């Protein structure tokens, strides 16, 4: 490990410590300063379901290319406590530089000795540890000190002058230590920088879904906190006053879903955000949306189940839950965004489709997408999207008027002279309870008729790679980046990747592409290949092979590359 090393393309930095030690602060400072210096950066944290103790880490990747996936390899590791090394043992190689207090870490592995804690105490206390560590990495990249200092001043602007001063001097000490480290180990970094990174910003998946909701006109969220979906609730709460969003933490997910339907009924545009267990409680209400033909947008952030499972880990195990949830038969749409931009656009579109077709629309994400930070250019506000699809009612208004496309003009109480009657029992055109079997059949047909028209709205899958592929890799949701990067590394022109951001109704292109391939491989972060089963159900095609992972971790670039 003492060989001189040049990083020209890609670097992986991991910070690991106990919950509450400040891993997150280091992550925020690092990615922002790296961005301001023009680097493509990406951060993905992994953490335990606890508030103190344990071992949490974050991986920060810096690359010449735009990246958004997890790698196992660690180039620079800054362990903040003893447990960190054993926690990450499986990822540490003899190419990993471990930087820390050798005496405290108590490891056999070679460590570049920096007594972070001692220096922090000299500056004014343990609390400065984080900024020294961040400064170290910033020094390794030889980023302009003024840029770093100005960032720190802005970052701590709410603190006292003394604290700001101490943080700046902590950053300065760390920066110098980073320079010394590079000099003594012969490390040089020449990863490409990009001028326009200054105009980008970092978003995690939760914020992207939140922004997409606002862009889609969301003005109501009723949810119960549950990892990894809570970030959306928090984000919208922060924006509630400015954008006029009713934010209510419901007593349970049953209430959350029923509130959302009440809001749509009265003219609101509501979102529910939850994870598998919470969504299980919402399924009764989902079925109600099906019967009363209420729009509703459901954000379902997946984590490993069954039951409480691994609360802070990732999985794509709830596709079938979203697909089959709710008793009875009614149409639905399921989006599975794989990039931060798609998380935004799919959520925005979800509001439009839910409103126009008066159906539930899902955004299926997962912990990896929710908690990882990607940098993206600014997002435009949709000027063209209609405000809503509400009609002013006439005296003899009928909420469930039979129409050719199954969509009845949607009135709301208090807007027009008509009355708006919705019923969870089977109902006639006016919304009144009926047990007439002919009316029943006409209402079922009406509701299902929308599916035919929905087919025109499908988000087509994207083919990444050459059209003349022999082997086709199929993925959905958050595996997008990792599959792209693994394929790029392999550089095999005969392998292409089909990325599905809408998984139900299944786009017809999926069948077309699958039929063209000699070999088809589905990549899924679950144990049973739920998307492969959906493909079989919809197209009759059995994929050749499945690459599955269900240990709670996202796929790494290395694992996909190896498996292909």
């Amino acid at each position: 490990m003492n060989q001189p090393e040049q990083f020209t393309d890609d670097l992986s930095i991991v910070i690991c410590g106990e919950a509450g030690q400040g891993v997150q602060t280091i992550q925020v400072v690092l990615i922002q300063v790296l961005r301001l210096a023009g680097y493509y950066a990406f951060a993905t944290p992994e953490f335990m379901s606890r508030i103190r103790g344990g071992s949490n880490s974050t991986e920060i990747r810096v690359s010449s290319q735009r990246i958004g996936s997890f790698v196992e390899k660690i180039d620079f590791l800054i362990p903040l406590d003893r447990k960190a090394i054993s926690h990450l043992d499986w990822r540490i190689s003899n190419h990993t530089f471990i930087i820390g207090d050798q005496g405290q870490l108590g490891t056999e592995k070679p460590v570049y000795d920096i007594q972070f804690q001692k220096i922090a105490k000299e500056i004014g206390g343990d609390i400065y540890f984080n900024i020294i560590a961040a400064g170290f990495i910033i020094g390794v990249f030889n980023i302009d000190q003024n840029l770093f200092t100005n960032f720190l001043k802005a970052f701590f602007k709410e603190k006292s002058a003394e604290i700001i001063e101490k943080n700046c001097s902590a950053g300065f000490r760390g920066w110098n230590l980073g320079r010394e480290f590079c000099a003594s180990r012969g490390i040089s970094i020449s990863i490409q920088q990009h001028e326009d990174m200054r105009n980008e910003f970092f978003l995690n998946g939760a914020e992207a879904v939140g922004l997409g909701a606002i862009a889609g006109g969301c003005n109501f969220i009723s949810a119960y906190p549950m990892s990894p979906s809570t970030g959306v609730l928090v984000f919208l709460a922060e924006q509630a006053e400015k954008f006029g969003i009713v934010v209510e933490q419901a007593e349970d997910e049953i209430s959350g879903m029923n509130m959302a339907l009440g809001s749509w009924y009265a003219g609101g545009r509501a979102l529910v955000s939850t994870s598998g267990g919470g969504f299980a409680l919402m399924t009764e209400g989902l079925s109600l949306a099906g019967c009363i033909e209420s729009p509703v947008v459901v954000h379902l952030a997946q984590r490993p189940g069954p039951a409480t499972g691994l609360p802070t880990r990732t999985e794509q195990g709830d596709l079938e839950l979203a697909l089959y949830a709710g008793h009875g038969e009614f149409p639905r749409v399921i989006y599975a965004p794989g990039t931060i931009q798609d998380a935004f656009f799919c959520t925005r579109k979800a509001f439009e489709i839910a409103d126009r077709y008066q159906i539930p629309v899902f955004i299926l994400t997962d912990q990896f997408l929710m908690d990882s930070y990607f940098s993206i250019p600014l997002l435009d506000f949709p000027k063209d999207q209609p405000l809503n699809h509400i009609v002013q009612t006439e005296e003899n208004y009928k909420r469930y008027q039979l129409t050719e496309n199954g969509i009845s003009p949607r009135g709301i109480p208090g807007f027009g002279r008509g009355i708006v009657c919705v019923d969870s029992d089977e109902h006639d055109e006016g919304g009144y309870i009926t047990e007439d079997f002919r009316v029943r059949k006409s209402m079922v047909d009406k509701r299902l008729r929308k599916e035919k028209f929905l087919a025109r709205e499908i988000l087509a899958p994207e083919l990444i790679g050459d059209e003349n592929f022999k082997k086709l890799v199929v993925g959905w949701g958050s595996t997008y980046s990792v599959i792209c990067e693994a394929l790029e590394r392999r550089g095999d022109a005969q392998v292409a990747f089909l990325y599905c951001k809408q998984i139900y109704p299944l786009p017809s292109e999926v069948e077309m592409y699958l039929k063209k391939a000699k070999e088809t491989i589905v990549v899924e972060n679950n144990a049973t290949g739920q998307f492969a089963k959906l493909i079989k159900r919809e197209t009759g095609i059995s994929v050749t092979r499945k690459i599955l992972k269900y240990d709670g971790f996202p796929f790494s670039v290395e694992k996909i590359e190896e498996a292909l």
Partner: protein
Amino acid sequence: MAVSNLDLKCDVAWCPGCGNYGILTLLKEVITELALPREKLVMVSGIGQAAKIPQYFKTNYFNGLHGRALPPATAIKASNPELTVIAESGDGDMYGEGGNHFIHCIRRNPDIKNFVHNNMVYGLTKGQASPTSERGFVTPVQIGGVILEPFNPIAVAIALDASFVARAFVGHQKETKTILKEAIEHHGYALVDIFQPCVTFNKINTYQWFREHTYYLDEKHVVTDRAEAFRRAIETDKLPLGIFYKNPDKKIFEEQLLAYRHEKTPLFQRSRKPDQWAELMKNLVSV
């Protein structure tokens, strides 16, 4: 009183003599006398015989799931505060299946009215115990008699400092009408638990029984005295009727929401906010 504006020709699913008829008539009269505009009234109900009440007169309604009337009622009011919202269902719906929502709705204090038809039995599922059935009440399921403590909605609501808590008996039309009117005119959450005999499945708690086992709180009762209200609420020898408790100082849920800090209009009347968006983007980049 003319209530023809609300009348609806329909096939009613209640048994002859059911207490629900009386409540329907009184409700229509109250709505008419208070001159509530029809298009601005929303009835929200769950499932059960009582929950069918919105089906039987001309009104907007959201007839949702069993036990789930209060969450949509709260959300309807929070999405359009100009609406008058009445959540009306039976004791099984509101206190059993919807017990958790009942508790938290009182905590929120939205300006909605909660009328509960309390007949101490399950009607639509044919005669099983309800949360308010008395101990020893024999049913096809509770064969040896009910062994659970009856749910006391009045005491629970007062314990939670509900802003308006009352109990009525449909057999006393004039008094019930006064209570319903006062509840609707009250600013804040208002619970009216309405005794209403089930003539088919409850042969114990009949019109006669309610007449004999109830009395009215008199004018000496101070409705803002919570401790006294609670003391009255736990009386069981004879069950008090009337307005037990009022807390006029409670803040209203929807009025405190940040969404209504700068704009008071219903959500559907608001425009998009491109300026806020531009500012948000600016802030995100300058982190």
